C-alpha cells in the first residue's frame, strides 16, 4: 500500500462528519428487541415465582399481599438486573416483558433503581406496613 492512498484517505476523512453518533442530541431509535427495563403486568400473574427462581442475579422479588385473591407486588432491582430476559422466557403467563423504550436508567442514587410494580392501592398498603417499625417483611438482610 503506497503512502498516497493513505494521504487521500486522511484528506477525505477530514471533510466527512464523525463516524460516532451524536447522542444524546440525536437519538437513534433502539432496536425492536432491545432488552431494557423489565415490565410486569399484575393482572395476569399467578404468583408461581418461577421468574424469581431462575433469575441469575436476584433482581426480582414478589411480595404477597393476598394469596387467595392473587394480589402481588413486584419489587424489581434494576441495578442488580443483568438484562438476560430469562424471567421473560420462564413466565408461563406472559406477564413479563422487557421494554425497548425505557433503557436510559442512569441515576446517581440507589433509590431510583428500586422499582415497584402492581396495583396502586396494594403498593400504598405495602408502603404503609413497611413504614411501621419492626414489621419490615420486604427485604432479606443483605
Amino acid at each position: 500500500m503506497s503512502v498516497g492512498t493513505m494521504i487521500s484517505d486522511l484528506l477525505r476523512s477530514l471533510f466527512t462528519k464523525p463516524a460516532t453518533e451524536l447522542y444524546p442530541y440525536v437519538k437513534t431509535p433502539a432496536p425492536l428487541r432491545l432488552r431494557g427495563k423489565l415490565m410486569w403486568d399484575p393482572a395476569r400473574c399467578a404468583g408461581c415465582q418461577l421468574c424469581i427462581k431462575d433469575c441469575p442475579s436476584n433482581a426480582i422479588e414478589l411480595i404477597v399481599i393476598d394469596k387467595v385473591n392473587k394480589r402481588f407486588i413486584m419489587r424489581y432491582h434494576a441495578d442488580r438486573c443483568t438484562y438476560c430476559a430469562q424471567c421473560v422466557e420462564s413466565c408461563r403467563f406472559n406477564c413479563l416483558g422487557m421494554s425497548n423504550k425505557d433503557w436510559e436508567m442512569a441515576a446517581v442514587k440507589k433509590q431510583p433503581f428500586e422499582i415497584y410494580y402492581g396495583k396502586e392501592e396494594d403498593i400504598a398498603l405495602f408502603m404503609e406496613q413497611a413504614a411501621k417499625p419492626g414489621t419490615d417483611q420486604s427485604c432479606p438482610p443483605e
Partner: protein
Amino acid sequence: MTTDTNKFVIPIGPQHPALKEPANFEFWVDGEIVTGASVRLGYVHRGIEKGAEARTWTQNLYLMERICGICSHVHATAYTLGVEKLAGVAAPPRANAIRQLMGELERIHSHMLWLGVAAHEGGFDSLFMYSWRDRETVMDLLEKISGNKVHYSANLLGGVKFDITPELAAEIHKGLDFLEERNKFYLKVITTDETFIGRTRGIGTMTTEKAEFLGAIGPTARASGIARDIRVDAPYLIYDQFPVKVMTHTSGDLHGRFIVRINETFESIRVIREILDHLPGGELTTRVPRRIPAGEAVSRVEAPRGELLYFVASNGSEKPERVKVRTPSLCNWSTVLSLAIGLKLADMPMLLSGIDPCFSCNDRSVGLKSANQDPQIWSWEKLRQYGIEYYR
C-alpha cells in the same frame, strides 16, 4: 524466577500501559534481545467455577456467559451442549442453526476486534480505528437479533430465545456484504503495507513440529500449518450440515496469524449466508428438566481463539456438582514464552497479541504449592513472612 544477578530483567505488568488486561511478564534481556521470559497469571481470577456450584443450572447459563466478554456466546453454547448431553435432550435443528449463526457472527466480531488490537500494538492506529468502526456493523446485527451488543444471552437450556425473521435475514445479508468488502480491504492492507509486513513477517516463526510440541491451538496453530478445528474434527451443533473449511497458513509467523484470522472471517461470512438461505424450520426450544440426571459430560466447541472445553458433572440435583472450564488462551501461553527468545523487546507486544490472549478467560484457579505445608491453607503469619522474604 532466577537468582542470577547478572541478568537484566524487565517487568511488564500487572499494571502497564501496553497491556489492557492484568498479567505480569518478566523478560530477561541482553541489550535489546530477549533471552528468557516468564509469565504470572491469576490477577483476574473470579472464582466462577466455585460460584457455579451455588447456582441452579439455568442461572449458571448466564454466569458462564460472563467468563468472557468477547466470546460470551461460545461459553454459553459449550455449557448448554454439556447440560443437554447430561439431560439426554437435543435442541431442535432450528435452534442449533441459530446458535451456530450467532457463534459465527461472534467470530467475525472477535477477529475484527483482534485485528484492531494487534494493529494498535504494532503502532498502526489507523487500521485499529477502521477495524473497530466496521466491527460496529456486526455488533449492531447481534443487537438486532438478540437485543444486546455484548452478552447476547441467546441460549436457553434446550434451545434459543430469538428467532431469525426474513426481515432480519435481509439485514444480516446487507451487513455481511459490507463486512466482506471491508475485510477484503484489510487483507490487502496487511499483505501490501510495507511497515506492517516489516513488523510481522518472520517475527515469532513457529514450525509445525514446534506448534505440536507446545500444544498450540486455534488460529495460532493453524497459522503454523496444523489443520485442527473442532468444527471440522468433531462437528457440534449443525456444523455437519453447514461445514466450514479449515484455514491454514504455512508461514507460522505473526503475518500468517493475521492472514488465517482474516480468512476465517471470510469463511464465517460464507457459512452464515448458507445458514440464512437454508434455515431449518420447526420449534425453537424443547423442555429440559429442572433436575439434571446424575452423570458427567464433556463438551467441546471452537471458540474464536481455539478449542474450548467444558466438563459438567451432576449429582442429580438442581445445581451442578462441578463445572470445569478450559479456555484456549491458557494453552497458547507456552508458545509466547518460547518464541520470545531471540526477538527484540519491541516485538513483545505484537507477539503477545498474536495469540489473541484473553486474560479473564485464562485465570481459572490459583494453586499455592510448597513441599512442607498444606497447599490450600496459609495462616496470616505465614503469608506475612512469605511477603517479607519475597521482597527482601
